[in-house]
């Protein structure tokens, strides 16, 4: 009898709970989930973003970390949550479009309500300053002369750094003439690039400036202001969809979020990104701001999901 009453009580409360009043949103603090460890690039970006986002939404927002499995653990956990707008994940291109196509994770392209994109940086292919390779053509020549001698690194299989090098060498038609050496994270890979164990690595501009490295190409639609002499991938002869790569990230809620709540979150995100405080933060931390609203971000996200399939195939993942 007692047990039945308890069960009935819980059944009632479960039925009552999902009625979310969009007008009152947010009534509770909003949890911004970083799928990586505290202190990493994603975590710091989110911590710089959170106060401005909280101010814009007129409530509280806090950052929590749920690291592991290249970000898939956090995304897998969020995917199963109720879409109430109080749990948002900040996912990158790899977490949201690459990992679900190479791992058997419980989420895919339809699991999310995209809210907004915040940042996007093009990646570059670079080599150590003391290597003889000045242009992409030099690399093609050297790789064809001695197949299997040149080595490129990555921060792990399926990571953005891996896809950048794969896009470059597959695009130049020499992918099978070079060896791939995966590391655990960009740090150790950059060390071996400095030491000469590997000759090529691909990452964003901010990471490249940490060492004495020479950029060979940039995966952007146009040349970068900071490196006007470095050709785009398209200029070196690399064809779409391998010619443009951006390490982008944005906020996602589980699929099925009410349109009113999505609109509120989207507006707050836009206001936060445009805020003076966040713009200052982005300038000092080297973040390339790239805001997209919910509808535009969703279209972009779905297009990226599709086109990255070609990269994954080229990488043999």
């Amino acid at each position, binding site marked *: 009898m007692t047990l039945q009453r308890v069960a009935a009580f819980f059944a009632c409360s479960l039925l009552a709970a999902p009625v979310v009043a969009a007008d009152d949103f947010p009534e509770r603090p909003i949890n911004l989930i970083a799928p990586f*460890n*505290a*202190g*990493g*690039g994603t*975590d*710091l970006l989110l*911590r*710089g973003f959170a106060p401005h986002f909280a101010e814009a939404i007129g409530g509280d927002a806090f950052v*929590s*970390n*749920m*690291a*592991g*499995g*290249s970000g*898939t*653990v956090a995304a*897998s*956990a969020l995917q199963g949550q109720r879409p109430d707008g109080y749990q948002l994940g900040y996912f990158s291109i790899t977490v949201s479009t690459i990992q679900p196509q*190479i*791992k*058997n*994770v*419980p989420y895919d392209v339809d699991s999310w309500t995209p809210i907004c994109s915040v940042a996007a940086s093009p990646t570059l292919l670079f080599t150590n300053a003391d290597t003889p390779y000045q242009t992409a053509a030099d690399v093609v020549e050297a790789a064809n002369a001695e197949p*299997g001698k040149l*080595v490129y690194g990555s921060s*792990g*299989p*399926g990571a953005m750094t891996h896809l950048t090098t794969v896009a470059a060498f597959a695009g130049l038609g020499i992918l099978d003439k070079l*060896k*791939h*050496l*995966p*590391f*655990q*994270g960009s*740090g*150790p890979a*950059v*060390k*071996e690039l*400095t*030491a000469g*164990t590997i000759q090529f690595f691909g990452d964003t501009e*901010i990471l490249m*400036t*940490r*060492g*004495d490295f020479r950029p060979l190409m940039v995966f952007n639609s146009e040349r970068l202001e900071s490196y006007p002499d470095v050709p785009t991938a398209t200029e070196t002869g690399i064809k779409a969809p391998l010619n443009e790569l951006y390490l982008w990230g944005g906020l996602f809620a589980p699929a099925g979020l009410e349109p009113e709540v999505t609109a509120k979150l989207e507006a707050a995100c836009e206001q936060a990104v445009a805020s003076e405080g966040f713009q200052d*933060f982005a300038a*000092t*931390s*080297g973040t390339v701001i790239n805001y997209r609203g919910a509808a535009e971000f969703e279209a972009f996200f779905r297009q990226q999901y599709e086109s990255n399939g070609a990269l994954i195939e080229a990488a043999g*993942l």
Partner: protein
Amino acid sequence: MLSSLPDAFAILMTLEGLLVLVLGTALGIVLGAMPGIGSTVAVAMVLPFTLSMGQAPAIMLLLAVYAGSVYGGSIAAILINTPGTPQSAATCLDGYPMAQRGEAGLALGWATVASVIGGLVSAVVLIFAAPQLAAFALQFGPIETFTLILLGMTCIVSVSTGSLVKGLLAGMIGIFLSTVGGDPIVGEMRFTFNNWQLFAGFNLLAVVIGVFALSEVLMRASAQLSTASELVDFKGVTLPRLAMWKGRRRTLGKSVLIGNMIGVLPGTGAATAAFISYAEGRRSSPNGDKFGTGEPDGIIASEAANNAVTGGALVPTMALGIPGDAITAVMLATLTLHGITPGPKLVEDNPTLIAAIFAGFFVINLLLLPLGLVLSRVAAPILRVKEAFMMTAIVLLCAVGVYFVRGNPFDLAVMGAAGVAGFILRRQGFPMAPLVIGMVLGPTLEITLRQGLILTDGSFWAFFYGHPIALALGLISVFALIFPLLRQFMSMQRRSL
């Protein structure tokens, strides 16, 4: 950079500078001393506060908490046999038996002095030899690192108290646990049974806390709970007298050296250094036979080495912009956030800031001594609470620490399972230190071996020609394995004569 030292001290000797150093170090010691809360958690906890601070105080706060927590870890390891992190695991081996003997104060005294000297020497090395050491770190490619980790693995033999076979088995269990999750080279999932929770593998901290701290609680619960409270007799730190150092200085010197060298190499870490130093101490110390029974040399070897790592780890971080571990990675990210680009030109472009950081690091290590003495005296009454309350508090703290790292409830289940498994294994006489060594070193051993094989096109023997460092380390590993057998053989021969 040396010419910037006066300016650097001007930055330190402000009210904010001193407050950050003293409070940060104290906070680090307290957090590190809590079972389950190690350096990574402690640094992550103070990280949000650094966002609103100036450049130098922000980095100094992180450094103070880092160095303090590495020392603080020895307190829990010695007094209640529960290391907060893998790096203090070797300290338990002799620290706890000494505490059980009623010499807890003295055991902590050895740990304090060894920690302070290890940290101070590493600070001096950092100030004067960072560029040279960074060049040395670049000599260590995947193949060299593989042989170093191989040498670390031979430590399993030295820390296998009781049965060697059981020690080796425990080591194998540790290595096996480390293979769960994504394959580091091809990305394929291993032993995950399509459960996404296992995609990231078993969390190292959850397993270490489980097999050391939680199993210790279970061991005590299964034994007769003593209603008379006192766990160990502890009134505060007793510093060892100068005369007691006789014959121990060599162990201290070697341990500091090992900690420094290993700290400089990115991706190896304090736990590796502590275990290798412990094994070397056991081999070369005149008191080597007594290791594992509460021998001060064991504490010295472990603590001097893991504190010396802190300075060493800053070498590649500051000189090359390459983080040596998760904690120095946080520091680099903090620098970036304050508008400073880490990299080879970091020291050149910001001489005063870097000098302030290095000088601050020296001061932090000096502060460990007085703060350690004061805090341990304050903390001593805590140990007098009823054992049952103490054990409950430990379980709670462990759960908080493990949950904080990745924010994943699954890690709590892993900790619980590791605790029960550790309890069963310990009851059967399996030592837990080899399991931790296997799990700490397993992933690096695997990835460097496979990286090496990619570079040499699959030839293992090619590891040793053209790589003199690898050859030397390989030979030392073989020697380290044969030496105990050789010694046994010689003593048998002597007896038969």
